């Protein structure tokens, strides 16, 4: 089965992104596909490149990157939500932004596109 996930909670304000990650890992382990994880609202903060959690905290960021690498999970940050929150930096060039590798910035259209392609759609709130 194909899943599309949306995360709209920030990384250190709630457990939502952790739950989404736990779900994605379990789904992939069962042979399902996670087509896309769309980071909307405060969820865009999950993609900040320069997050430096203490070494004894499991870094969710590298977890997402590994899912993208190994399973082709498409990690998309909503451009409108990111821009509103300053996540993209001041320029119009995404290359100058604070977004971590493995994520891409795109519009809400990609979320609708994922909803159309997926068998199940899940939202993980903050």
């Amino acid at each position: 089965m194909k899943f599309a996930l949306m995360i709209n909670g920030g990384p250190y304000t709630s457990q939502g992104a952790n739950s989404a990650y736990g779900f994605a890992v379990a789904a992939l382990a069962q042979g399902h596909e996670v087509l896309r994880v769309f980071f909307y609202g405060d969820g865009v903060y999950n993609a900040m490149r320069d997050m430096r959690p203490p070494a004894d905290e499991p870094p969710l960021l590298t977890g997402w990157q590994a899912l993208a690498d190994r399973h082709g999970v498409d990690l998309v940050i909503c451009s409108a939500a990111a821009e509103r929150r300053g996540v993209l930096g001041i320029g119009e060039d995404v290359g100058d932004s604070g977004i971590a590798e493995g994520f891409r910035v795109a519009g809400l259209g990609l979320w609708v596109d994922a909803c159309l392609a997926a068998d199940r759609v899940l939202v993980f709130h903050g």
Partner: protein
Amino acid sequence: MAVLHIVKHSPDASQALRRCLARVGPSDSVLLIEDAVYAPASDAALRCAGKIYALLPDMAARGLTRNPLQGDVEYVDYAGFVQLVVNHDKVISWN
């Protein structure tokens, strides 16, 4: 046709659980995750038209065990979470 309702807030922190339970249909299910797993640990009234599940890893992380007084609640791990999503046609998360 059935809906899986996911709740993540404790009954004390948010009305989400109460709001959700009022809109559950007879073939629907409710999955309690994150702080919502405190609900079956207490004597909170967990009655609705459908079945109720709680996510074990979130319970374990909070030092919670199955509450014999909430006999109708079933328990799943993340693999069971995935299975619930597969077995319902759609999912709604209550913020």
